[in-house]
């Protein structure tokens, strides 16, 4: 069995030191907050240290706290299939500089998840190899999961594309 949430937070704080800017424990789930520039290094440590062994990025998403500063929270859910413990990692980013470091070099699942996060929230992931939209189409304007995107907004139909003519990116 893995570490309990309390023990996990203790161990993460011991390993990452000052870089853990905040840690939260609620509903039997452990969460840490990282500064944007610390996230890749701390996540690499969480993945590679055998006592943590977070070998899967189970989920990556964002939350729009509209009206608060900083506005967005990028939320990573790490899962250790080896030990069976989970950790939530948060990185807060502002509206003006809505970007985070890409973690595609750590977990392959980050590729599509970061594309979705860009698509839905307009948060850029610096270092992403293929930063396209994923669920919406290229001509779509705006980012639908932002709180200031109206739910009933309609967008014009886009003209038919000929992908053979235009080519697509492999």
């Amino acid at each position, binding site marked *: 069995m893995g570490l309990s949430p309390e023990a996990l937070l203790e161990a993460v704080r011991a390993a990452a030191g000052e870089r853990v800017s905040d840690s939260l424990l609620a*509903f039997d789930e452990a969460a840490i907050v990282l500064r944007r520039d610390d996230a890749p290094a701390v996540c690499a440590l969480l993945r590679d240290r055998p006592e943590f062994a977070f070998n899967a990025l189970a*989920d990556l998403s964002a939350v729009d706290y509209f009206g608060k500063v900083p506005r967005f929270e990028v939320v990573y859910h790490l899962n250790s299939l080896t030990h069976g413990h989970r950790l939530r990692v948060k990185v807060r980013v502002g509206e003006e500089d809505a970007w985070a470091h890409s973690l595609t070099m750590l977990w392959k699942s980050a590729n599509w998840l970061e594309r979705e996060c860009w698509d839905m929230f307009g948060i850029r992931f610096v270092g992403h190899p293929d930063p396209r939209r994923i669920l919406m189409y290229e001509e779509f304007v705006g980012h639908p999961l932002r709180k200031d995107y109206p739910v009933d907004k309609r967008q014009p139909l886009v003209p038919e594309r000929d992908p053979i003519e235009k080519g697509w990116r492999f």
Partner: protein
Amino acid sequence: MALPVTDQRFSVEVDPSEEVMDIQMGPAHPATHGTIKLNLRLDGEVILACDTEVGYLHRGFEKMIEQGTWTQAIPYTDRLNYVSPIINNVGFILGVERLCGIEVPERCQYIRVIMSEISRICDHLTCLGMGAAEAGAQTVGFLTNESREFLWDIVEAVTGARLTISYTRIGGVTLDLPRDINARVAAAFVNLRGVLSDCDKLLTRNRIFYDRMVGVGAISADDAISFGITGPLLRAAGVPYDVRRAHPYSGYERFDFEVPVGSAGDNYDRFLVRVSEIEQSMRIVEQGLREIPDGPIRLDDPRYVLPEKHKVYNSIEGLMHHFKLIMEGAKVPAGEVYQAVEGGNGEVGFYIISDGSGRPYRCRVRPPCFFAMAALGDMLKGHMVADIITTFGMVNMIGGECDR
């Protein structure tokens, strides 16, 4: 059209003297049960690269859920994986119940487990039957669909609907099991065991099926973990990760079942894992029906649960509670949880945030298919065009869940 000599993203070496062809497959291809477009780069019949395009079934699930009350969100969860909607209902509501700090009665936990497992069997039957039918074994498709129909009859008898069931509520489920549930399940399982045995005879040692499945679409355990793949695909690669075991919910720790694993991670192992999982799910259902205790099926908690009808009609408190819950919705306390359940295709996760206002602030769904689709290009590289059909069939992409 000029073609690049080296493909940057997939670093596939292309012989310039060879004819390379770009082809789109889908989004409405008759042999792929799901709207998805595969942009393929082919060298003859061999797949050099595959760029998977999802999103054709995107309906803004996460946005829509933020518009209504917590109870109004439950029907949306039906439309995620529409083959096994109960599992999504249970996953969402377990997260909400954790936020509320309530625990449902034991009978309700059993009902949720039993119905989840019946849904899981439906999911696996769909995958096996359609996967086999697309590979040419049409008979198997008919057999499994018939068997699934008997299970959906049970689902209908319990919940009142076949697919869009919205069976769970905060603090319980809508309806109790019917009195003849044991007989119904027994009859359906007799049929199902016969079908499984028939399918085993038709497929497992079938030369054509075997040759088309073995070694096709394989993914290593390390890659599968890194891609975030869970469920039967991960277990076929030899990793015994099952949310029901690793993070038990709704009383799964009481149940006695095995987690079948494969070794090669190819389509054939995926097929075998799913068949074994159907057998394990039947075990769980039978154990559940043996041990299910009597008692209430929902909590008596006026903050979250609608009162009994006789209280609504005969007392002012009951009427008030009913009115408040319907008009304003349950006030789920502020907080955030991540609740994972084992869906038919893997870990279905609900990351739910409440601000205490009576409406979900954010509900993120972790769809298991999305991760498998991200890996599809890697699974297919170097295989033939015909292998797309079997691989896609065994991955069992469900559009409603993948695209939300």
